[in-house]
């Protein structure tokens, strides 16, 4: 056993890797600057709560009702209104992407109201090339019209109303569920991409042979590589979490202990994947390309971070079970917004550990083989 595992040797390796890691300014950029930039971007740029969407309001009537409705659109905090008299003025702006839609208030608005028929009162046209924004414009334009009707005492109709209550995130602030997701992406980048690069570099430069010829075992080489990056990723997570909590007001309703436990569990598959990629690729370009396409993009798009997994077609839903970030995003959102729900944490943690173990075992057998040849 002592041949496989020697604490002093191990510590020396970890020390060497850590120094190598911290010496390179690009590592610091990746581990500390990029996460901060990402957190800020997710907090400010990827707000899914739209407001001030630019639309046109084409007022074809001079009647008081029409004026009031146009004013209601201008007054809405969801829209920035470009007034127009003729719809041709705004049609070009839609094609150019400067406006996201327009509302036509017809010249016979008053007659239509008085007739009380089923004929629509106003027309709403949206730019369907961006479906999200289009439905946003449609929904909020509808709301403005409904409120304007109510304020004029027009019948809005009895019937059924649903009163929504959003648990864990009453205001439905998108940064509250986006920032925990962003942490998963940052950790994937450090864990998978950085590790894949570092080990592939040793192979590409031929220094791996030199390391292999020393008395250290394969296990020690791999652990020596992984532990410093484990520490780096945890440091980056801590920074992101602190920023999210204290700068952006995301609550941490669960415990730090659970957060660290989950993050450590996630790093097993993330680092394992990096290791696996590098042992297959042995070339930095291919390793980076593979890490990008098998690690980073799935973490971004298949983890349920932005796009709901249950809505995906079945084959892709099955594929998401292989993406470690899927389990991590679920648990992170829970630990931040809901609390320590162990019945969510435990199955997800086990899944992450299982995937990680498989990755590391394959990587280890690959590394061993090249030792023998």
């Amino acid at each position: 056993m002592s041949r496989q595992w020697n604490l002093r040797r191990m510590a020396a390796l970890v020390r060497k890797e850590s120094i190598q890691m911290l010496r390179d300014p690009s590592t610091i950029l990746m581990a500390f600057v990029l996460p901060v930039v990402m957190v800020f971007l997710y907090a400010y740029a990827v707000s899914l709560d739209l407001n001030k969407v630019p639309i046109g309001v084409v007022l074809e009537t001079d009647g008081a009702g029409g004026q009031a409705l146009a004013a209601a659109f201008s007054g809405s905090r969801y829209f920035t209104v470009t007034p127009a008299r003729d719809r041709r003025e705004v049609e070009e702006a839609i094609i150019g992407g400067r406006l996201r839609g327009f509302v036509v208030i017809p010249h016979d608005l008053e007659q239509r109201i008085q007739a009380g028929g089923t004929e629509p009162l106003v027309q709403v046209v949206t730019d369907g090339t961006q479906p999200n924004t289009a439905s946003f414009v449609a929904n909020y334009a509808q709301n403005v019209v409904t409120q304007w009707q109510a304020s004029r005492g027009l019948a809005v109709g009895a019937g059924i109303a649903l009163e929504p209550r959003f648990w864990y995130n009453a205001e439905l602030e998108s940064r509250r569920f986006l920032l925990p997701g962003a942490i998963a992406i940052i950790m994937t980048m450090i864990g998978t991409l950085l590790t894949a690069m570092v080990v592939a570099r040793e192979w590409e430069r031929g220094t791996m042979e030199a390391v292999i010829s020393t008395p250290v075992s394969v296990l020690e080489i791999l652990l020596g590589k992984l532990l410093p990056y484990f520490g780096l990723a945890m440091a980056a997570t801590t920074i992101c979490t602190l920023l999210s909590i204290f700068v952006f007001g995301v609550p941490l309703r669960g415990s730090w202990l659970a957060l660290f436990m989950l993050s450590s569990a996630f790093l097993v598959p993330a680092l394992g994947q990096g290791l696996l990629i590098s042992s297959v690729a042995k070339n930095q370009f291919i390793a980076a390309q593979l890490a990008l396409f098998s690690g980073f993009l799935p973490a971004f798009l298949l983890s349920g971070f932005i796009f709901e997994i249950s809505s995906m077609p079945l084959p892709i839903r099955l594929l998401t079970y292989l993406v470690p970030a899927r389990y991590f995003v679920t648990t992170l959102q829970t630990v931040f917004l809901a609390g320590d729900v162990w019945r969510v944490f435990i199955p997800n943690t086990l899944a992450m550990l299982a995937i990680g173990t498989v990755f590391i075992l394959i990587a280890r057998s690959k590394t061993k083989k090249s030792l023998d040849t």
Partner: protein
Amino acid sequence: MSKSTTRLWAQILKELLCVLRDPKTRIALIGPPLLQLLIFSFANTLEVKHVDIAVFNRDTGRASYELLARVGAASFCDRLVTVHSRAEIAGMIERRDVIAGLDIPETFTSDVKAGHLARAQVLLDGRRGNASQVLLGYLSEIAGQTGADLTGASAVADTVALRHWFNPNLIYQWFVVPSIGGILVMFSTLMTVGLSIARERELGTFDQLLVSPCTPLEIIVSKMAPALIICSVLGSVMVAAGIFGFGIPFTGSFALLLCSLFVFVLSMVGIGLMISAVCSTQQQAILGIFSFGVPVVVMSGFATPVENMPIVLQWMAKAIPLKYYLVILQGSFLKALPPSEVFANVWPMAVIGVVTISFATWFVKGRLE
């Protein structure tokens, strides 16, 4: 003149061979982007499907029966789970067994009959904020329609005539496939060109290149050539996949789109060269590419409209070629984008390309002197 042309050709040929010689590199260059286009195009949807909803119904009348029957029959709902207390709903949402719960009070049917507004509560999982919001929209529409049918009043939706131009049914793929294609071309270009100079420097062969009779401009041009050729082809394949594979209508000018694609790749090549030139190892170059690429995707208007961002980010977005290319892509597919609009979006990319390539040339020249 002819001597330098031969030299340039030889250089370009060498660079192309360098990239395409290794079968693994060839596959890594072309395979993953196309595979990703396929997977992500199907995965990225903001529709909500296959959800389970918990129901706590204290009402025994017709109104709640009607409402639940319609929700249960809706295409987005897989299962309605009947529960017997609010606490049960809470537990199921917490464990993510259901995404939402309906809480219907005893007076529900009598309220509808009496002509009041009957209220039911929807409890939604705020952790899955996007999906919850979309689901609420679906449920409200059903509730409004049910209420209108039960009371005989006209539904509110009738007051507005709604039309979605260019994409009448708001098919999300029509938006996502072209956009993802653009993003993947950007990353492929950056990776191909970004590593070129950095690799030479890491392996020490860059100095050999500098002492050769090649001028800095020749070095830069030959480094640009493989990425320019490969990624323009890749971009065209992505567009073709959108048209023929996904059946997205293409209404604009194909020739203009190809020209824009070329300028876009050129501007990304410039940025990649710049990153490559200041890095001394491949690792630095790749991390540089990531530090540049990831925020750029976020700020390009792909995830959320640029005009919705803080003003400082909007200024920064003006320097992002991807932003312009996405406008051209989406416009060429669906909007029959007129040439004037295409040019309005092409020239900023051209400017970015010229500036970044000049910088890279200047940098190589600086190393030479």
